[in-house]
């Protein structure tokens, strides 16, 4: 049993990243557990860091599905961005700034934890606002951890984040969960296009409808998007269409690892076989935060 948070952090640093984003294949994919593990590792090594979220996270009960969720326990010194309206009365936090960026719950505050406690993290609504907040957290602390919302990977655009993909026991079967994680990882790992070969550059987002048209038309050129976040469809639709197209991007993202959460409120998968299957299917080093195991 090893410290998965520390291992993820080491992988991120090995790529030169100053920020680490966790995105999930679905709700309850274990993002918060992975984030908490990374936060605990950063705290243990006394590295200042900032934390923000693309959506709402850290609440004790899932706001949409009323399922108990792991909360974010943050130690003194942690800087995080959240809706000012979600700041707890206790423990009091140090307000560093109230920003112009807004989320669904109002303006975003940047705060520093002064006494340990559980906190709710709710980031701004737009991807560009998330990037501005991340940049600010980097200026304040030197390292940022981003809790990505389900399938809102637009917030990764133009970023240098090391990306961790979280997959949980949320699909009906392990095979379905593997399909989901393969599709997301494949999308995030779109390779850079080859300038020497013919290419069709797509301005803006590539939708499933546009991709289907290209497949029907027998497109053989590289289909190039600005970056992987511009592929506006995922899951099985992505796997089905991507196999017929040479999808490429101008600017690559940096997925570095996966995490597995073999238990969910609905079901549990066998931890080790799930861990190994995800590693084998995605080709990325994969960690089980609960068991502290790694598969490559």
């Amino acid at each position, binding site marked *: *049993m*090893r*410290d*998965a*948070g*520390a291992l993820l952090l080491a992988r991120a640093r090995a790529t030169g990243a100053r920020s680490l984003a966790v995105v999930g294949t679905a709700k309850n994919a274990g993002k918060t557990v992975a984030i908490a*593990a990374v936060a*605990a590792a950063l705290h243990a090594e006394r590295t200042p860091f900032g934390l923000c979220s693309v959506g709402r996270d850290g609440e004790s009960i899932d706001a949409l599905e009323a399922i108990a969720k*792991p909360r974010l*326990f943050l130690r003194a010194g942690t800087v995080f961005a959240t809706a*000012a309206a979600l*700041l707890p*009365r*206790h*423990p*009091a*936090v*140090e*307000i*560093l*700034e*109230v920003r112009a960026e807004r989320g669904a719950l109002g303006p975003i*505050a940047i705060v*520093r934890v*002064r*006494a*340990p406690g559980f906190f709710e993290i709710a980031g701004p609504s737009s991807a560009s606002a998330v990037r501005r907040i991340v940049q600010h957290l980097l200026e304040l602390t030197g390292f940022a951890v981003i809790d990505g919302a389900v399938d809102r990977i637009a917030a990764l655009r133009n970023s240098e984040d090391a990306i961790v993909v979280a997959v949980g026991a949320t699909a009906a079967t392990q095979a379905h969960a593997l399909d989901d994680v393969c599709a997301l990882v494949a999308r995030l790992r779109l390779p850079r296009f080859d300038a020497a070969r013919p290419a069709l550059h797509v301005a803006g987002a590539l939708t499933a409808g546009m991709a289907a048209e290209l497949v029907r038309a027998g497109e053989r050129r590289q289909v190039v998007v600005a970056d992987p976040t511009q592929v506006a469809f995922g899951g099985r639709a992505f796997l089905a269409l991507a196999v017929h197209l040479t999808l490429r991007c101008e600017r690559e993202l940096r997925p570095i690892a996966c995490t597995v959460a*073999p*238990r969910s409120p609905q079901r*549990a998968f*066998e*931890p*080790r076989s799930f861990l190994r299957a995800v590693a084998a299917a995605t080709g990325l080093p994969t960690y*089980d*935060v*609960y*068991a*502290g*195991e790694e598969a490559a």
Partner: protein
Amino acid sequence: MSAAWSLASASAIGIDWLLEAIAPAGDFGRRTRAGERIFGPGDEAAALAAIAAVDRVAHAFAPARLDELSATLAAAPDPGLLVARALAGDVLADAEFFEVLRLLDALIEARAAIEGFDGFELPDSERELRAALAAGRSPQRTFYLDSEFDAELAAAREAAATCQAAYDAARGRIASRVVRALGVEHVREGEFVVMRDSLKGSVPPEIHVVREAPTYLLCELVLDDAALATLALRAVADERIAELEERVRIRLSALVRENAATLEAQCARLGELDVLIARARFAQRYDTIVPEIVTSATLAFEAAHYLPLATTLQTHGRRYEPVSLDLAGAGVITGPNMGGKSAALRTCGFLAACVALGLPVPARNARLSLFEEITWLGATPSDEEDARAERGLLSAFGAEIVELRAFFERGAQRPLVLIDEFARTTSPREGRALLIALLERLRTLGVCALATTHLSNIAADAGVVHYVVAGLRELPPQAEGAVDLDAALAQIADAMDYSIARVAERALPRADAIDLAGILGLDAGLIARAREVL
């Protein structure tokens, strides 16, 4: 701010542009401006004082300093909601105290920026509130409900920190034993998984198995009595801290409540300052002067700039010719197309609007009165079609007549009426008759009015003053073949003498229309035929 002009008139004379140019930077300023009145007849002293104040600020401060102050005012938070909550007895949140402090910072910065200038008062009336919040303020301008606010809070936090350290140590000892027993590197906080095949021997006593599965155990640490005791003590300390933190918030909220009137008054002052700064920046940018304001219906100025046009020409690299005019009562302005007749009308309206808004004017010198309203009759520059569509079935002529009727029905005592080729879309004979009748009426009423027209002898027959635009100094070469419109316009501008002179009532207006049509590329045969017909 209640308008002394219709939307169409505002559009014709560039008031939208002007309002944008003097837009305050922040919410307070926008609120102040919304409540401002427009100066009219009888407000001469107040208007002059307002204009002089803008001029003094424009001359007293460097542009960079005004820019900085403007940025400060733009960033100042509006405490309206939190003040209302405090007045309603709510206990404010920490982020709200932070916002109060940001406002107090803006006041300090604004006060420092205007230090030594005796034209604006920003008293330090928020001193007590600032002092009360100071304990929570860091040099980095953050806010924390610091222990300095309350001695008991300090003690409770210390106790909680001691409990936390004791708990961490106790849990650490248990975790170390588990790490050794399991032969692993690390045991995470909360639930963790132990794979059965990695378990050497039985489950250590420090582990509670939450759930057993065929291949793994879901576990958590069992806390011993010492750890549980520290945990209980920490929970008690936490409760006490929460209580004391809220006690501080209640006290600070009461202070905000007591200072609500002060905060509101200071916000109003910041609003006034924002409006003043925005106007002073306008004055600096456009090199304005304080006009002489008279009580008789007068509009006289030298080298005035119609700024919406001047700035547009500047962005296109073209020359702008300032306008000079001396108008008392009603007058007619004639001259060639593209000679600046309409621009002269707009300059009149623009300068009158500046003074009505309490602004210095962009001219070398100016003497003018305050007008009860500014009315534009005739073509509007860009939204003519939209306006006409709104009027339904009315033709352009019909719309003019309806507007004119409404003007007389309002019965303004001292209006400024600007008439751009009135009745140009009806028969020239009847249009001429209507224009003469209108000018006669305006003259009789003593109204300050200026009308552009291409019709002959209007000034003489209506008994009003006649001005003429000088027109083309020399004829630029006629174009042959395809015409570069920008080049042709520049050529016309270079050849045109835009100066306006008062002439005899019966002086014939210059047209230059056929020459201009040639320069703009109309085919030579058509031009030649037009000259024959003429």
